[in-house]
């Protein structure tokens, strides 16, 4: 408005005669009314594209959007491109970029419109068809996703694209009502364990002996840190049966065995089974069910566990998913000497998974908390009212992790965690309330030299610092695992 007044005054000041002034004023009114009408029009076309300057600006926008995608900011790329959609719809490069930005920022419906245009212009664009299939998959339209994935397969895509498509087709098959999807594995491991019993390295600890007081006692060898080599075998499988578009049921089991070269009392055999239901709708996935297991240590059964768990995941965008999870398990020891340690454990937590810009790397984090209620009714001198010597436990922790593809066949992974736990009772042997700080770190690589065969070298380190010496330990485990998957 200020600009208009200034211009009108300038024009008026330049006029000499009254008649001319009137004439000019009339045309000026028309000039500015036309100007404002034009500026106020809702359908004003976007600038650019018709002039060399506009074309340059447009090229810059495409370049900037491309850079934003590479920087892992698809929502920003979409915000940059979307205002230009009307003007540039039908241009293959623009539509592909707009579609990818929409897809990666959680707008698969908008993405399909853009990819439909690309394919109308160029039906041979396997890249756009692959992304269109992904968009359908994200919309939950698995039938059309499968159709388009299969069409791309017939276009003789690259081996990497073919492997990706096969993953989708497997996932879609698993979701189809009335279909049962089976997957299994078997693996063998060779490794060295620096502490087969999670035991302290100390040979003597100070203990309160009833009637004597605090005395230095010698820990028995089986209660002290011992290293050994081992081999392990594991096998497992899971079946998922689709009931309808949203619901499915699952059942699975795993068997894990470890044999030490000399510490036979710590050979272990664990068996776990699980079953439950899966629900999936749009960006939400839920899985809940029951699980149970038995664990044998040395020649005798050590404990059984049973309970239920639930996990809910919501994908805000393909690269960002949050999880809420919870688990309730009862642990019951078999050995009468260990039954005072029976407990029920509850854990709840929240996690987040973020896929980095290149689509090849992932970061995750979680926080969790829980408690253990000691449940034993066995009365001992250390537990006159039953329960564990240290009583109930409250704990909380956090974890971070990451993985990245290294080349076509190798996945590098790392995860680490920190956990703090405190107990409710004063331990009569040590005259303190137990308090632990636990840390662990795992580094490894998964080398898939074949679609079904892989080798996994791995290093794990765990450390527990406790104010009761017998519970402080550190443990390192280095291993190589050969694995064969069945799908």
């Amino acid at each position, binding site marked *: 408005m200020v600009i208009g007044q200034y211009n009108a005054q300038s024009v008026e000041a330049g006029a000499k005669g009254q008649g001319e002034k009137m004439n000019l004023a009339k045309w000026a009114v028309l000039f500015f*009314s*036309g100007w404002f*009408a034009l500026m106020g029009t809702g359908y004003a076309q976007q600038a650019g594209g018709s002039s060399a300057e506009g074309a340059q600006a447009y090229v810059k926008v495409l370049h900037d959007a491309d850079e934003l995608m590479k920087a892992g900011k698809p929502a920003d790329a979409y915000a940059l491109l979307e205002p230009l959609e009307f003007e540039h719809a039908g241009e293959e490069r623009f539509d592909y970029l707009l579609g990818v930005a929409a897809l990666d920022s959680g707008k698969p419906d908008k993405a399909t419109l853009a990819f439909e245009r690309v394919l109308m212009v160029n039906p041979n664009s396997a890249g756009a068809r692959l992304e269109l299939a992904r968009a359908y998959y994200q919309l939950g339209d698995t039938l059309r996703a499968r159709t388009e994935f299969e*069409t791309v397969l017939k*276009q003789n895509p690259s081996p990497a694209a073919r492997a990706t498509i096969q993953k989708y087709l497997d996932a879609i098959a698993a979701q189809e009502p009335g279909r049962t999807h089976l997957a299994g594995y078997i693996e063998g491991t060779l490794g060295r364990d620096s502490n087969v019993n999670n035991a302290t390295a100390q040979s003597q600890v100070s203990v309160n002996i009833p009637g004597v007081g605090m005395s230095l006692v010698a820990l028995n060898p089986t209660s002290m840190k011992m290293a050994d080599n081992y081999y392990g075998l594991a096998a497992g499988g899971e079946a998922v049966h689709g009931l309808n*578009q949203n619901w499915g049921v699952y059942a699975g089991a795993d068997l894990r065995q470890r044999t030490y070269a000399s510490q036979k009392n710590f050979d272990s055999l664990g068996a776990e089974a699980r079953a439950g239901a899966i629900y999936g709708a749009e960006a939400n996935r839920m899985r809940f069910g029951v699980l149970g297991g038995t664990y044998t240590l040395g020649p005798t059964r050590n404990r059984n566990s049973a309970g239920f768990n639930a996990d809910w995941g919501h994908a805000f965008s393909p690269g960002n998913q949050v999880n809420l999870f919870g688990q309730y398990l009862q642990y019951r020891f078999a050995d009468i000497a260990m039954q005072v340690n029976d407990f029920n454990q509850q854990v709840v937590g929240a996690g987040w998974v973020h896929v980095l810009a290149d*689509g090849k790397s992932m970061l995750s984090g979680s926080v969790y908390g829980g408690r253990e209620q000691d449940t034993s009714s066995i009365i001992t001198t250390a537990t006159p009212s039953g329960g564990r010597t240290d009583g109930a436990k409250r704990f909380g922790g956090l974890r971070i992790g990451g993985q990245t593809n290294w080349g076509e066949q190798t996945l590098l992974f790392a995860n680490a965690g920190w956990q703090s736990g405190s107990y409710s009772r004063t331990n009569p042997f040590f005259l303190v309330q137990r308090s*632990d700080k636990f840390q662990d770190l795992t580094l490894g690589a998964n080398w898939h030299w074949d679609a079904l065969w892989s080798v996994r070298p791995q290093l794990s380190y765990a450390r527990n610092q406790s104010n009761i010496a017998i519970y402080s330990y550190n443990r390192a485990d280095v291993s190589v695992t050969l694995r064969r998957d069945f799908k």
Partner: protein
Amino acid sequence: MNILNNILRGTALMLALAAWCSNVYAAAAGQIQFVSGSAQLTTTDGKTRTLRKGDAVNEGDTLSTAPAAALQVKMRDGGIVAMRPDSRVKIDSFKFNDKEDGTERSSFSLVKGGFRAITGLIGRVNKQNYRVNTPTATIGVRGTDHEIFVVVPGGPLSGVAPAGTYNKVNTGETYMANSQGEVSVRPNQMGFAAEGQAPQLQPLNLNIFTVAPAPQARGGALGERTRDIAVVDGVLQEQIYVPGFMLPPVLTFTRTPITASYPCFVMSPIGQPMPGICTATF
């Protein structure tokens, strides 16, 4: 002065013309955002013209696409109408004054073929003000992205699907109604209404709803760069969950009794205390 006068007059005329043209667009129901192949517009007075990108479409116009052609219309309320090949749609009414005050209205008639509609502001608040009419059903929305096809007897799709109206929902919800009944259609469901029959849900008919045209040549994608999306969608597929990423991978509780030995006095067989070794279990 004359020169200045003439320049001003000419500029004013051009601006007035531009303003008039843009006001035509402002009053239009929508504009052609994308067209591929041959598409036609027929006005209420029977005049037919070929559609091009940027053309305005108005209430009362009938849009038609040739086989293998497609177009997208950006409606004035922000909605999108994506017409499929070999289709004909009439814009029965379109009233929108940039407000959702109840006077806004959008009504289409699908004569043949199909289209996809992503609703804009019309129908967002006042759901009853958005309608799609077909020969066998009326379709309303509750805020949605849906696709509709009409298969007519003897038409190109009559060999692969029974005649009637097909309505597939991508997001949101629609309902299909006719004199025989009504059915609610939710995401990834397909409703079907045949002549004289109540609308019902049916399995998705891919012969109708596979919209991307088939490739024209085979074996051409080997060299084409595709994005590495294995990790991205692994998140959705829950295939990248590795034990230890969310909860600790190892158990921190004691698995075996911890025992210690210490010198003490024990009872001898004759009941006398004597030095010995005692064991404590923690």
